[in-house]
């Protein structure tokens, strides 16, 4: 058992994943599989609301690099909002913020993608 969960919803042509709990290897795999599914269905704009994820590990985050790679192939974009400071720092150290973007709010994220 793990306490990780994802809810998915659509805002226009944007897919929003809302994660809760610890983003470890299992969590990362679940995020990636939903993202890959969306991409295969033609979606190009993905957002992750991380409000309820306070902890990650590098395995979980490294799986996001796969998603970024897949999106690069189809000219898509990945963004995040409600990111805890330590997770933002982790994203920066790993450099994934060079290829995906942290927004300050859902509103800002949706505006930027529309």
């Amino acid at each position, binding site marked *: 058992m*793990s306490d990780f969960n994802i809810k998915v919803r659509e805002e226009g042509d944007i897919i929003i994943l809302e994660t809760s709990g*610890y983003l*470890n290897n299992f969590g990362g795999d679940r995020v990636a599989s939903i993202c890959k599914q969306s991409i295969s269905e033609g979606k190009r704009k993905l957002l992750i609301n991380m409000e309820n994820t306070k*902890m*990650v*590990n*590098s*395995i979980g*985050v*490294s*799986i996001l*690099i*796969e998603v*970024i*790679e897949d999106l*690069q192939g189809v000219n898509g974009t990945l963004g995040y909002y409600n990111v*805890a*400071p*330590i997770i933002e*720092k*982790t994203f920066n*150290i*790993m*450099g*994934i913020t*060079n*290829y995906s973007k942290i927004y300050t709010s859902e509103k800002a994220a949706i505006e930027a993608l529309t």
Partner: protein
Amino acid sequence: MSNPTVELTLPVMQDMELAATKTAEVIAKRMDLDGEKTDEISMALIEACINAFEHSKSKDNIFIQYIIDPEKLIIKVGDKGIGFDAEVVAIPKIVEKLNSDNKRGWGLQLMKELMDTVEFQSSEDGTTVTMTKNR
């Protein structure tokens, strides 16, 4: 008198690293460290623990020590596994990870960036990472 020390022994079990971070949080609060430092300690500790669980290839418990020094918090994470040479581990780069098969390899880098000092002692009898965070 020697420094107050908390010791934690964890079995190899999914998500047990969170027990290490929760313990670190209580100690950090007791030491009056701010939230930012506390979070950095927790993230580094997660990485040290999952390495000890996974790469050590050992089924033995891992061993964590939190030493409450007047100047800093010293954390040691030990395993009884196969050991490795931290000097030869390549520094990961996101450009190289994109379009590569191996997206991983971020743990040591994160520990070094998040803590004030990080040192590895490793032999074929196991590995101990010693990390410090200054007050």
